[in-house]
């Protein structure tokens, strides 16, 4: 997983943190991570950063600091909602939580399959989810800029 926690520098403007599901070996977990990568590496690399759920589970202080100092978007692969729960248990504030299943219900044509390698439907579903996340990222970024300018 591309954990960008290390990119956090003091006194930089807040970036939106993405915390995806860590479910390994599950299709919906893979969709959540692919969507996170799409946002962080492709769509909004300058405005976002990723924190691995496993770091929060292990109590990593740097990861915890990042999620308490920045707005957080979580992506859950199933109803257990581990990403959302772990961010809250780590004293982070979840600005928006996404569930892959809810997104799939909106894009029934993109049926995800595969685990290590998603099928075409899974990749397109991940992209659709990423584009929904970007809308929230842009809103948060503009609010942040407004706050800094004002």
């Amino acid at each position, binding site marked *: 997983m591309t954990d960008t926690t290390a990119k956090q520098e003091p006194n930089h403007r807040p970036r939106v943190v993405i915390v995806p599901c860590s479910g390994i070996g599950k*299709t*919906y977990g893979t969709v959540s991570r692919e969507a996170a990568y799409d946002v962080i590496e492709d769509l909004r690399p300058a405005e976002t950063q990723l924190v691995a759920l496993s770091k929060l589970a292990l109590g990593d202080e740097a990861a915890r600091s990042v999620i308490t100092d920045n707005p957080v978007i979580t992506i859950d692969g*199933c*109803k257990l909602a581990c990403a959302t729960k772990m961010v809250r248990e780590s004293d982070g504030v979840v600005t928006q939580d996404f569930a892959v*299943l809810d997104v*799939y*219900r909106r894009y*029934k044509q993109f049926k995800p399959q595969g685990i290590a390698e998603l099928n075409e439907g899974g990749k397109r579903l991940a992209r659709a989810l990423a584009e929904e996340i970007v809308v929230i990222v842009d809103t948060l970024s503009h609010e942040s800029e407004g706050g800094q300018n004002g």
Partner: protein
Amino acid sequence: MPEFLEILVDKFTFKVATDRFYNREGLWAKTEGRLVRIGLSDFLQQRSGDVAFAEVRPLGTVVTFGDEVAVIETIKVNISVTSPVSGKVIEVNPAMETAPEAINQDPYGAGWLAAIETTDWETDCVQLLDPRVYFAQLKVEAEQEVKRG
């Protein structure tokens, strides 16, 4: 008999409502006069995972025992739901269109699939399982699944 029979297998609790019959696949059938309401058992819904979509055959569809009456897509599997009774579909749960997660949230209540006006309930019901028999079958299946990991 209590309202539900319950069993804890590993970390999972499964309930069987005692006021209805079951087929071997885990569909329940509850009589309401000439109507039989049908749905998924708690065990079947838990084993199948979160429901993404549920498509029930439309009103007026005539089914015989064992015909496909619904298709359910979950995050794990696609389930072909076979009718536990013969008759005509006269009600379809509107929640299946808008909130099929009701199957997971309340399998014996709000998560019902359809109501069927039966044509041969006396014949159909002898092929269904008493809740205690279904409970015993469930117990064996659940323990086997836990052993398989």
